[in-house]
């Protein structure tokens, strides 16, 4: 019996395991799949070329993409086309990462944000402005005015994937 009481006594002086969530956040794993982020190149151009492969791969039909033509005066992404509308319904999305796998330019990446709760269904539709990451330092915001013949290739030369 004393042995059992000693266990109780020992537990009394241990730190509680509770994570005080809203103040302290447990860091997510490197391959955690949270809310999507649309990436940009270092010069500020969007990686997304509006090919809709993510929408085709999506098992829950959460993604809607509409594409439009790029011109050299108003260039959003390298190559011919860009996504003029990009919407993801977070209540449909099951965070499987198929869109990430399907993307030929690694434009869509599942990020770290898991705090997704809404009081209304309409709030759950994330538009392109909400998903795009901010312009990196040294880059220019889209649309950019570029010289003709510079961005002809829409899918870049890829390297080995990294986490």
């Amino acid at each position, binding site marked *: 019996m004393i042995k059992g009481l000693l266990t109780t006594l020992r537990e009394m002086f241990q730190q509680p*395991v509770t*994570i005080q969530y809203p103040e302290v956040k447990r860091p997510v794993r490197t391959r955690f799949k949270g809310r999507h982020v649309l990436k940009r190149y270092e010069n500020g151009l969007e990686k997304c070329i509006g090919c809709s492969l993510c929408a085709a791969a999506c098992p829950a039909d959460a993604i809607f993409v509409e594409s439009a033509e790029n011109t050299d005066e108003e260039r959003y992404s390298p190559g011919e086309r860009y996504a003029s509308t990009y919407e993801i319904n977070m*209540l*449909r999305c099951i965070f499987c990462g198929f869109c990430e796998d399907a993307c030929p330019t690694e434009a869509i990446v599942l990020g770290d944000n898991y705090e997704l709760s809404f009081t209304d269904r309409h709030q759950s539709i994330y538009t392109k402005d909400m998903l795009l990451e901010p312009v990196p330092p040294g880059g220019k915001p889209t649309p950019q005015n570029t010289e003709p013949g510079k961005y002809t290739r829409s899918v870049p030369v890829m390297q080995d994937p990294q986490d």
Partner: protein
Amino acid sequence: MGLEQKTGNLGVVTTSLEQVVNWARTNSMWPMLFGLACCAIEMMAAQAPAYDMSRFGMELMRASPRQSDLMIVAGRVSRKMAPVLRQLYDQMPDPKWVIAMGDCASCGGVFNNYAIVQGVDEVVPVDVYVAGCPPRPEGLIHGVMTLHEKVKREKLKDWA
């Protein structure tokens, strides 16, 4: 309730009463034990020591709807379960709130077929939708805090 009609224009009294009652409601909101699928595992994890939900006054899950204020619909609701869900909701005493936890409860998720209710808001009024498949325990707690924000904004004249 008719309190505002009786007291007339007593702004200070009614707003402070409003705050006190809303404070009490947010800080002791007992959820109902209503796990239907995989989201229930995360709901259990949110109650477990690591993300102790009793920090928010959710001391324990009540198995009886008559003792609970909040229904966390955790998981997909089949067509056969929908009348049960509605009956349990009707048995809960007012005031009552509903959280649709996860994609399936919110809008059907991947289960776009005839067997699954495409969102529990077909059956009961939903206050907060939590996205994720399943949401992390933090995600559920974030949804609970969103609900708390909503409850704190509730007005006295809407109680009646």
